[in-house]
């Protein structure tokens, strides 16, 4: 089990690096587009779509890493005031509800990806980007997000992690 948790965490970290690199690439492409359009007065073909979809991709791929770092903002008022036991129950509930949503998103995302791939869907622009490329981050990123949730729940069960990262004595 340690191995599973370690592998999932490592995958999430890799996702974080990939996401940051895609973000950096998007910045460069935006600038290249500005130079083309406003300085060289040429029309741009692929840049707008590339940047839009890479930001979507970076978001979805980056989400497991952000979960690992507890970076998804939440309302932790109630957990903060509850005693440790109740906090534990709440953490399970919250994790399972979130996992259910992520699983649904992964599943439908995979379906969407498959349809786009099998049907040869492309975007409407002249660039005609195959949509399966744009959709791929949904099953990939959110799928890993599910795995990260499973790992988090396992850690919660075995006492490796405290619910909401709060120690038993942490009351305001």
């Amino acid at each position: 089990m340690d191995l599973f948790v370690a592998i999932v965490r490592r995958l999430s970290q890799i996702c974080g690096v990939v996401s940051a690199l895609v973000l950096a690439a998007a910045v460069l492409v935006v600038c290249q587009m500005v130079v083309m359009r406003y300085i060289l007065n040429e029309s741009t073909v692929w840049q707008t779509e590339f940047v839009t979809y890479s930001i979507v991709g970076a978001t979805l791929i980056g989400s497991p890493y952000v979960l690992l770092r507890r970076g998804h903002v939440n309302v932790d008022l109630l957990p903060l005031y509850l005693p440790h036991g109740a906090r534990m129950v709440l953490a399970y509930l919250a994790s399972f509800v979130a996992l259910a949503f992520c699983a649904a998103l992964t599943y439908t995302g995979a379906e969407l990806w498959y349809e786009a791939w099998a049907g040869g869907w492309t975007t409407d622009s002249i660039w005609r980007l195959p949509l399966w490329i744009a959709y791929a981050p949904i099953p990939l990123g959110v799928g890993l997000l599910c795995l990260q949730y499973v790992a988090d729940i396992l850690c919660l069960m075995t006492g490796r992690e405290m619910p909401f990262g709060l120690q038993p004595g942490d009351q305001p």
Partner: protein
Amino acid sequence: MSPLEIGVVIGIVTIVVLASGIPIAFGLGAVAVGFLVIFDGWGSLDIIADTFFSGLAEFALVSIPMFVLMGAAVASSPAGKDLYEALDRWLHRVPGGLIISNIGACSIFAALSGSSPATCAAIGKMGIPEMRQRGYPDGLATGAIAAGGTLGILIPPSVTMIVYGISTETSIGRLFIAGLLPGLMLTVLFMAWALFAAWRGGYRFSLTDAGYTLRQKLQILPRVLPFLAIIAGVLYVLYGGIATPSEAAGVGALLCIVLVVVIYGLFLRSWPYRRIWEILGDSMRESVMILMIIGASALFSYTLSSLFVTQSIAEWIGGLDVNRWVLMAMINVFLLVCGFFLPPVAVILMTAPILLPIVTSAGFDPYWFAVVLTINMEIGLITPPVGLNLYVINGIAPEISLPTILKGALPFMLAMALGIVLLCIFPEIATWLPDAVMGPAI
């Protein structure tokens, strides 16, 4: 159940689910999907991925990570410290100069980053210890930074304005201009209160401190002016309608990073290049968090409108036939309460599409309303239970108790409420500049 009743149930369930401490993005998504399945059957699951994806695949949204990156380039590098020091050196001689320069630094940083917690953290890290050392009361020092930080979402560029613009299909450039004067007005109100409070608290401004020499004042300028030039450039490009917000933000972000690398890496050699990862990583985390909420909100508003909740609420309020100012007061209270519990981006995404038709049909300007809504959100950022800025300050200065920070922040909340009242009496504060620059709204 009538759509209105469904709406009430969804509202209650959303509050309960989010209170569990679940990440807001996944909580919103789960509620949306749950209600779709209950009322429309399993077949409705098909649209989840597509709706989520389409909610994110907007070129205008690209500006969010870009502006976040622009702010992080300064906040996660020595540039933030220099910016702060420059203001201190130049405003040193002004009575109450330190607290004034802190609030001023917040508003300038707000013009760089578009995010309130980031503004708060960047200025607070330097400002709070400095103010305490020079004898300002704890509550005032922390309150001023907490409140000054909220300007991040009002003074352009502002992440919440981008989100408002996308979810209500209004012009982001125009929204930015609309926020400028109200932002400056709040800055002045904050400064006025800070001066008065410091004076009343027995703090006497002495001019006998060892001042800075002209040489010291000039020395720091080359490190700061380029960043200010970038802000000015980005705003000019935006307001002139020369480029879209995403393009301006992208170029601004790259220039800020290049500047940090050149000034601190190449020139001063005080900043190892590998720390560029910190900038990238910090902005990636912040943008992923915001964008996931945006994607989930797309699902949430899809559910609301496919169950006719959005339309019914608008109809119901339209049928109430109350005075438009009573309506505006009600909306303000509602937004304020939402802001107490949820971060601004989530509130705007969930409520703006419902509220905007109501507000415009009551004869209010959508850009003016964006400003009022944003100030409401700012108040929520420094009020418990979920005042993000309060916790940021608490993290920076753990030795100051939360109640002290709160008490210090309270007068600034009143200043913001005063700001809303002023905006209601003189709507021109928000509408004059956009009209003058971009021509009257249609």
